[in-house]
């Protein structure tokens, strides 16, 4: 697992088409993982929708049967990790790899009608704006 982190520093995995490709691959892997998990547990996959928004990303995850206390959400190294667990429905996992820098302090999530909506704004790309420097 650590080796892939190193590779991501060298190759442009986090920009443009690679981000999308990475995302598709991860989703397929996650889908297969959770498919196997859920088939064993007797429950279906967690369906999710991933959006690109004007300010970054947003995800909507179907999580019927869980309260917000039973869900843990974590963001680390471009990856959003979700785990929902209770006795009745067992465990459900989801991992989404996102390209571009996410402003981690501004991530918000709300659970309503069994759908967890997560908004992940991108960092303001201030470094790309040019600043005029006054000469004394």
């Amino acid at each position: 697992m650590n080796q892939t982190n190193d590779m991501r520093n060298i190759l442009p995995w986090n920009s443009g088409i690679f981000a999308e490709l990475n995302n598709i691959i991860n989703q397929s892997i996650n889908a297969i993982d959770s498919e196997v998990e859920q088939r064993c547990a007797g429950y279906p996959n967690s369906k999710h929708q991933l959006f690109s928004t004007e300010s970054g990303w947003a995800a909507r995850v179907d999580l019927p049967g869980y309260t917000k206390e039973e869900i843990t959400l974590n963001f680390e190294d471009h990856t959003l990790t979700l785990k929902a667990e209770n006795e009745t429905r067992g465990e459900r996992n989801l991992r989404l790899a996102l390209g571009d820098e996410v402003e981690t302090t501004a991530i918000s999530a709300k659970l309503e009608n069994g759908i967890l909506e997560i908004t992940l704004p991108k960092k303001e790309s201030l470094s790309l704006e040019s600043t005029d420097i006054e000469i004394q």
Partner: protein
Amino acid sequence: MTVKPHYKIANNETGASISIDLPGVKKEDVKLTSKAGALTVSASRTQTTPEGWQLINQAAKPEEYELDLELDKTLNVSDAEAKFENAVLTLSISKHEESLPREISIQN
């Protein structure tokens, strides 16, 4: 798009318990009807997408849920109890009186 919701049925001696997943549905949008041993659940999932949001994965977007269940004749469907919590509809249906296991005492 109308889809069949995921559900689970658990049977025991006194009846059955059915749990139906209805994510995105509000309690007032669930319609539950029974007719001659058949149960129908229909619900609409209202969810607006904010302006500027673009879907980037291949995700199904269900709008309506519809489920028809043909239940065992021993179950008393008309007396079903329903509760809706965390977007899961749980139905408790007990068997008809005469179908319940009963001890018959033998006369002398």
